[in-house]
């Protein structure tokens, strides 16, 4: 099975296309809505989808994703549901690269080896585990490599240079730059040191560097796309989703235009 994320990145490089990555919480407001939103995201020109798996204690997340996670958990969403959604989408011919985003405990509880195998056979292309640095669960990380499930590493504003080099070296697919000190959630302004950090990271690697955390308006998305290889938008999508699926779809479309208009 081809890794759609690798394909997408190669293609974006050739076309000098910026990457727009959308985060959704699986099961918020319902599993059916998540499925519909993934399909409409693909149609809106979204390049990568982060399928957020709800966790009871999302300590890297702000109030918005805490809320969507709690709502989704009321429906007892399981890892198997995540795999089933992706399997169905792939059967429908959805070619959007999908990256699993979730905290380590539900993955650990599922069994890390089984997770890597089942995620890949469902058609997931990568994963992001915000509370799993490369020093922990190393067997799981090498199992993911074996299964060609791309393990995306995060780099933060507080990451020292030697460690940043190590992380971009290990990261597969793209590098996730955490654009601010803090949790996920919309912000009026992004930190002043963002540009300097992005430039520094881009000098370290040829892998695309995507910025996420805090990006909530088309203006911000456009500005950051000038400095980074793409942007990741999560909480702002969920905020629109609170008003309904179509509101979120319109927002995703607007953001996609902002990113790709660059």
């Amino acid at each position, binding site marked *: 099975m081809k890794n759609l994320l690798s394909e997408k990145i190669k293609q974006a490089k050739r076309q000098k296309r910026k990457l727009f990555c959308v985060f959704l919480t699986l099961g918020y407001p319902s599993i059916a809505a998540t499925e519909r939103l993934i399909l409409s995201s693909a149609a809106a020109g979204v390049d990568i989808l982060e399928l957020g798996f709800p966790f009871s204690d999302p300590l890297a997340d702000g109030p918005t994703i805490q809320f969507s996670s709690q709502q989704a958990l009321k429906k007892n969403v399981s890892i198997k549901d995540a795999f089933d959604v992706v399997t169905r989408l792939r059967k429908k011919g959805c070619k959007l690269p999908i990256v699993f985003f979730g905290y380590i405990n539900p993955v*650990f509880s599922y069994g890390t080896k089984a997770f890597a195998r089942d995620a890949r056979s469902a058609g997931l292309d990568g994963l992001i585990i915000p509370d799993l640095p490369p020093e922990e669960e190393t067997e799981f990380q090498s199992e993911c490599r074996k299964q060609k499930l791309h393990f995306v590493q995060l780099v933060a504003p507080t990451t020292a240079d030697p460690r940043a080099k190590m992380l971009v070296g290990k990261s597969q697919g793209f590098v996730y730059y955490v654009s601010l000190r803090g949790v996920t959630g919309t912000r009026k302004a992004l930190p002043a040191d963002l540009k300097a950090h992005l430039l520094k990271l881009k000098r370290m690697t040829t892998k695309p560097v995507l910025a996420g955390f805090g990006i909530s308006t088309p203006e911000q998305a456009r500005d950051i796309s000038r400095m980074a290889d793409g942007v990741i938008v999560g909480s702002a999508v969920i905020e629109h989703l609170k008003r309904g699926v179509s509101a979120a779809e319109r927002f995703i479309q607007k953001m996609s235009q902002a990113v790709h208009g660059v």
Partner: protein
Amino acid sequence: MSQLPDVKGHFGPYGGRYVPETLVKACEELTAAYRKIKRDKKFHEELRYYLESYAGRPTALYEAKNLSAKFGRGRIFLKREDLLHTGAHKINSTLAQGLLAKRLGKTRLVAETGAGQHGVATATAACVFGLKCVVYMGAVDIERQALNVYKMKLLGAEVRPVHSGSKTLKDATNEAIRDWVTNVEDTHYLLGSVVGPHPYPEMVREFQSVIGKETRRQIVKQAGRLPNYLIACVGGGSNSMGFFHPFLKDRSVRIVGIEAAGEGVSTPHHAASITKGRPGILHGMKSYLLQDKNGQVLLAHSISAGLDYPSVGPEHAYLKDSGRVSYYAVTDGDALKGFEVLTKLEGIMPALEPSHALGYLPKLMPKTKKNDIVIVCISGRGDKDIHTVQQYL
């Protein structure tokens, strides 16, 4: 055994550092600073000064003869951490971490608190060392520990109520970590227990091991030998870890940790993470965790806010697996009986947390022999719980 954890903070399969990347640097800096002060005589002199002249160490080791007589078997001693300034063992670690935060150049402390004891002890350390202080506390706990909330405010700390999840210690910890992620450059996260990412489980254990070291000297002086049993309550596990650790190599000493069984371990309302949990990852560490089949963290329940936590320090998980320490769970009701008995027989009102350790005595004492020595760690005093006790007794 004292070589644990390894350099990466692992106690066998447990512990470690499962944190968002933003916090890695802070954890590394803290580890480096902690390694440095570990060998720094001046730091330890300064800390000793505060522990002795300010907090009131050493605490007494008291032979509870009336309580012993009730069972008519072994001799029961109490390690009186309840006599410390602010009323619990928490001050041992907050003074040490406060000093350490100053060395790191941090100007602000954040802490989580369940019963409020750690919050009060942190606010107190912030006062002494001239640091700003924000304490996160679950909305449910704020209600049941109103006195401590008011104390923290008087001490100049800001108490921020946490309304997410179960609104107790677990959620207060999430919120404290979120604050730390946001303000990591000027803020020290003053974790209250032997939980969290490396180096906290090791560091807090070391700062609390003054309890066990003193106990060892005192019992040898008073009874001429080591004890047969040590008993302490285990929530996150800081008083017990500090109490147990200096005795781990003494194979003749049987060590017992008591978890909160809440309404009973066969009900969903308990906080017995070792007895009923399975390995999982929360708050930066791998340890026993109360979780559902999907790996979602379950709500803990205990009459005592300080034990109301769904996981436990990773070293406890290791000691459970290795068999060195035995863990049992005591219900709310038996803890209340423990409270009542100690109050009536010895004139000591323990906090509801160590009341759980006392609640285990009716099971343990009949098995002891006349000359056996049992030491119970009274980790804190009961003032904060009088209101709760009043509703039940």
